[in-house]
């Protein structure tokens, strides 16, 4: 039950800047998810918070206490690792209670705590086994159990679901979030999977190449992405980004009527696949040529081409056109996202259209 503050935190490895100016305040009991592609600096940020990597500059506070230089054991945090990091030579019970044993807790109290935590995660029957006898899912629970038994101020998660089978992942992420809600412990979670971020987070921190791209709630990040990268990263399939300048006709022409082709030069248009629909070819709508149709169940992902740019549309199976067809495209006005094509930053619609 604590607050965390990253204050201009920066991490360099020699010439390489792994994290460039991280400023973030995490509230009491909040579940914050760092998300981004490999090498974006999310894991490094987590490790600095944990004390496993040194901070190059800046400060980190927990409950207004500056812990930037405190060794890991003084930070009262627990961490769940990607490959669980269970001690292979200890039983599950010993693994879970290791930290408590180090703090010289009484044997009976340890046993009680371990039992309680294990029951919470449904692994009470595995306490005497060794890690190598457990399945991946069970090991993951042991790792989580090890974290909660310590009753720490902060939970840290380093891609704990990455090594699980996809089906397990879905159930596991719900369980983790439910557990965290129940215990109310402030948590920082790192993942490369934007679905995990969207479904689990109170707030998301999107990172890329060491820089924070956007901090916001899942809704904010989804509906108002701060730049092209975030727009393309959050949401599956990713948002279609169309560079208006390159569109000689079709959409460019469509906008050309409103804003003129010169102005279209600096603008990228973002449209989410689920916000696009097909209609018959008409004068108003830009036309596209269908290149591929993939069925994913109730819906189809339809790939289409417009002026050498590719877009993807999500439609119900029955409404999907055939490959090779040329159809019209339409969308709702308020579902358009505009970005500055060179900087990638978000532009407001009227700014884009009025210039």
């Amino acid at each position: 039950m604590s607050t965390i503050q990253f204050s201009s935190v920066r991490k360099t490895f020699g010439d390489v800047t792994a994290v460039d100016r991280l400023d973030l305040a995490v509230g009491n009991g909040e579940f914050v998810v760092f998300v981004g592609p490999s090498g974006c600096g999310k894991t490094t940020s987590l490790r600095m918070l944990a004390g496993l990597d040194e901070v190059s500059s800046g400060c980190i506070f927990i409950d207004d206490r500056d812990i930037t230089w405190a060794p890991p054991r003084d930070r009262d945090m627990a961490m769940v690792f990607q490959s669980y990091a269970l001690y292979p030579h200890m039983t599950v019970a010993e693994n879970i209670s290791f930290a408590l044993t180090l703090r010289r807790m009484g044997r009976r109290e340890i046993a009680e705590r371990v039992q309680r935590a294990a029951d919470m995660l449904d692994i009470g029957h595995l306490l005497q086994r060794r890690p190598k006898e457990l399945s991946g899912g069970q090991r993951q629970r042991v790792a989580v159990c090890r974290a909660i038994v310590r009753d720490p101020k902060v939970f840290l998660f380093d891609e704990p679901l990455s090594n699980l089978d996809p089906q397990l992942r879905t159930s596991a992420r719900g369980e983790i979030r439910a557990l965290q809600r129940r215990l109310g412990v402030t948590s920082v979670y790192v993942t490369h999977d934007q679905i995990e971020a969207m479904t689990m987070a109170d707030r998301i921190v999107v990172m890329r190449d060491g820089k924070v791209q956007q901090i916001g709630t899942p809704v904010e990040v989804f509906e108002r992405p701060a730049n092209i990268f975030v727009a393309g990263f959050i949401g599956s399939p990713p948002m279609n980004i169309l560079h208006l300048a390159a569109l000689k006709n079709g959409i460019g022409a469509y906008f050309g009527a409103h804003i003129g082709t010169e102005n279209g030069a600096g603008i990228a248009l973002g449209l989410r696949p689920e916000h696009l629909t097909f209609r018959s070819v008409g004068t108003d709508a830009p036309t596209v040529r269908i290149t591929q149709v993939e069925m994913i169940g109730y819906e189809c992902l339809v790939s289409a081409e417009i002026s050498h740019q590719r877009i993807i549309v999500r439609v119900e199976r029955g409404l999907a056109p055939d490959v090779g067809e040329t159809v019209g495209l339409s969308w709702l006005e308020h579902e358009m996202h505009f970005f500055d094509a060179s900087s990638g930053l978000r532009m407001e619609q009227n700014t884009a259209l009025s210039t």
Partner: protein
Amino acid sequence: MTAEASAVRDQLGGRANGASGLRFGFVAPPWRPYAYLTPLIILLGLFTYWPLIQTFYLSFMRLNPGGAPSFVGWANYAGVFDNSQFQDAARNSLIYILASIPLKVLLPIPIAFFLWSIGPRLSAFHKTVLFIPTLLSFVVVAILWIWILNPVAGFAQTLLTPFGLQLPPLISNSVTAIYVVLGVSTWKILGFNVLLYLAGLASINRDPIEAMRIDGAGDGVILRHLIVPLLSPTIFFVLISTIVFAVQQVFTPIDVMTQGGPANATTNLFYIVYQYTFESFNIGFASAAVTLLFFAIGGLLLVKSVVERHVHYG
């Protein structure tokens, strides 16, 4: 940074930017690893590197009866080459090395093949038996063979007596003595070298062998064209090790059995250093001899690494 954090950081002696801190840079005092290494470094410095330098130094000195050593330049090296004892030692080492090659480098090869071709249980038995001499100390082995070869009442003699044969005194004979030492050290090392070859054979990739078999090649062909060439790195390794070992390490059997004699028949380049030091008290000679030896071996190892770089079949 807050005052509190500064205090903690100073306490830890932390650096402002973790310039070198790669993935292992968690917050810990930077002197830690050095502290862990200190005993080792001190020991090596004091008992290995410093004496090494001193040996070089001493090779240029002569110890005078008065006490103070004097600088004599290359005189020791010249003197050593002139010294008949040294010449004997060098000659003995050469004989020893040359004779060691067939016995310790080549002989184990067919034995390894034999082991490779018989059943697993029998093979395990033989391997175990052959390995035993490796574990015995050289002293034990030397004493053992002194007793067996004793011309008066050794066991070899008791075998021969019923046939009316008399075992000549092999150890005290200046011609045969060195061969006794050779035989004894072969007895001790043979099993180990066989195991080395077995390890080399085990690491040979089976697939080319299978391929050749399918192509119709018989065992002999496979042996000659595939296995032996693939084994050559191991052979080379054993060769170099044997030579180095022969020159550097064979001390104990000489000391126990013959003390370098009779008449310097068994002294070798290692033993002579001992003799110079403790029999003639000529520290200068000893140091010079050992330095020469060092560079000779060094040269050999250099050759080895150069050849190894070219002889690598992967």
